[in-house]
């Protein structure tokens, strides 16, 4: 059926190509263009995914020992306080970062959507942190948060206050990681909003000006409605990205203190690569996959609904 559809869409080209002898054979040869990618795709992505489904039904360690246990890993997960806590931490982290990223990103885009050199320079500054790797970002912020001689500690002392040990305080560790993450990731939402603002038809602003609409009125009734779809897109993209929190938590707190900042991906990493309880880790990975797939589907639908939004 797919071949038929392909032929239909290719009718135009078929006319321009008089000699089509041996077409059947050459069509198989066309597979050669996609074969190299398909080979890697199947062996390194599809096979691991399905092998993972199978492996999550086993009690398996890294050294090849494996025993079928059915859904025992998933039952274990549902009773594992550390796992439940990690899922909770992940959602809490998303709540801390995603709205902030969307709102600050939107604010920056609104403020910097102009062609002056100052605005261009500031856009460059706000995006610059995005190109740094997670290990440099965490190194920078560890010496900001350090209770002993850190930037904030020095500031607190200058004002006569006790320095706070952000990263070893159960209530502050995840918020501190969230601040680090917002600093690191703010460039992308800002740029997505800037691109959207450029797309708002100028006639709408001219009409608003004719109606003597003020600054806030124009913002509220012209600009924001015009970029609703981008707002939804930014939220979903950031949810998917921040779901995968790993490096910041691993490098800044190792999930501590007392599991307070351990996200889902760090849980998978530790179970899989330090405790070598591979089947159990893969089962937790399936849960993550399910959660991200839901968000990715939402993104697909929002991205497709061009006008409806």
């Amino acid at each position: 059926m797919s071949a038929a559809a392909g032929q239909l869409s290719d009718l135009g080209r078929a006319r321009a190509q008089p000699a089509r002898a041996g077409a059947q054979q050459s069509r198989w040869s066309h597979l050669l263009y996609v074969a190299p990618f398909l080979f890697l795709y199947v062996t390194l992505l599809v096979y691991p995914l399905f092998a993972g489904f199978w492996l999550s039904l086993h009690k398996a360690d890294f050294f090849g020992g494996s025993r079928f246990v059915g859904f025992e890993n998933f039952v274990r997960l549902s009773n594992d306080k550390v796992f439940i806590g990690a899922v909770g931490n992940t959602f809490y982290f998303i709540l801390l970062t995603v709205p902030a990223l969307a709102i600050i990103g939107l604010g920056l885009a609104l403020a910097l959507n102009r062609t002056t050199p100052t605005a261009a320079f500031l856009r460059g500054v706000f995006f610059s942190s995005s190109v740094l790797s997670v290990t440099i970002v965490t190194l920078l912020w560890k010496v900001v948060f350090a209770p002993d001689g850190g930037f904030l500690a020095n500031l607190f002392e200058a004002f006569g206050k006790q320095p706070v040990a952000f990263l070893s305080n159960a209530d502050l560790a995840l918020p501190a990681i969230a601040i680090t993450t917002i600093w690191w990731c703010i460039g992308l939402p800002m740029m997505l909003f800037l691109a959207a603002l450029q797309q708002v038809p100028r006639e709408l602003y001219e009409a608003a000006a004719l109606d003597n609409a003020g600054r806030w009125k124009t913002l509220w009734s012209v600009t924001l409605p015009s970029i609703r779809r981008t707002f939804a897109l930014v939220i979903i993209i950031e949810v998917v990205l921040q779901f995968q929190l790993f490096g910041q938590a691993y490098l800044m707190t190792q999930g501590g203190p007392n599991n307070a900042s351990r996200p889902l991906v760090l849980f998978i990493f530790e179970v899989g690569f330090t405790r070598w309880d591979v089947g159990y880790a893969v089962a937790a990975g399936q849960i993550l996959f399910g959660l991200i797939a839901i968000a990715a589907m939402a993104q697909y639908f929002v991205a497709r609904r061009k006008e409806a939004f």
Partner: protein
Amino acid sequence: MTTQLSSGAVGRGLGDRVILAATIALAIVMVLPMLWAVGLSLKTNAELLVDTNSVLKAPWTLRNYYDILIGSGVFRWLLNSIIVSVGMSLGVLALSSLAGYGFARLEFPGRNVIFVLVLFGLAIPEQAVILVRHQLFSDLNLHNTYAGLMLPGMSAPFGVFLMTQYFKAIPTEVDEAAMLDNASRFKIFWRVLLPMTLPAQATLGIFTFLHAWNDYWWPLVSGTNEQMYTLTVGIASTQMNFAESAGLGYLMAQAVFAGLPILIVYMFFQKYIVRAVSGAAA
């Protein structure tokens, strides 16, 4: 086009100045951690042990950078990062261009079904496959090799999706004209269409390069031999024993040294990098 600000025509007076001042204040907060790290890197470790506020006062020294130059794994890690990032980018460009052309222009059995199955791959997060992939690479003895570090990035379907869209957007009249000249399929691809996809190649290349350069988890579990560390993993390995062995100033000098190349590249290619990253996300 000068003030196409959110607001439209109304005054650029006080309101605008307040917004600008607030934005500049935020920008200062943005660069403070970087400046703090640069400052720390310019002090001797001994001085920092006494008081980190000494950053604000002379004497400053390049001693920490000198120490990096004479005896540190950083150069090796930098080289590894360059090899892996460039290799992965070239691989992704080659595979995605070939496959994108195939999906967009050629007929073969099962084309549409295969394409949809490839699209599903966009939703598979790395974390869901990394354990099995790790075992697979163990069986194939690919850990601690450059190929082992590069190959996983080449299996991601994003580039194929992007290139397919791009090839589809090129009018088929272009191919037809070339076919009348009796050009072969591959020749049309290589000589006619591929040069037309340069903007997409740039987007995909930059995006892949940045992704490879900053990737942490896979190199962490695959390139475990210190000689095979990428810059990202190497810098992480030094901060695990934070401030104990090497000294704070030395650590910060390493961070600056590792961050500077990518920031310099960013300064020169800012426009393209921003376009690549935001284009890839949306």
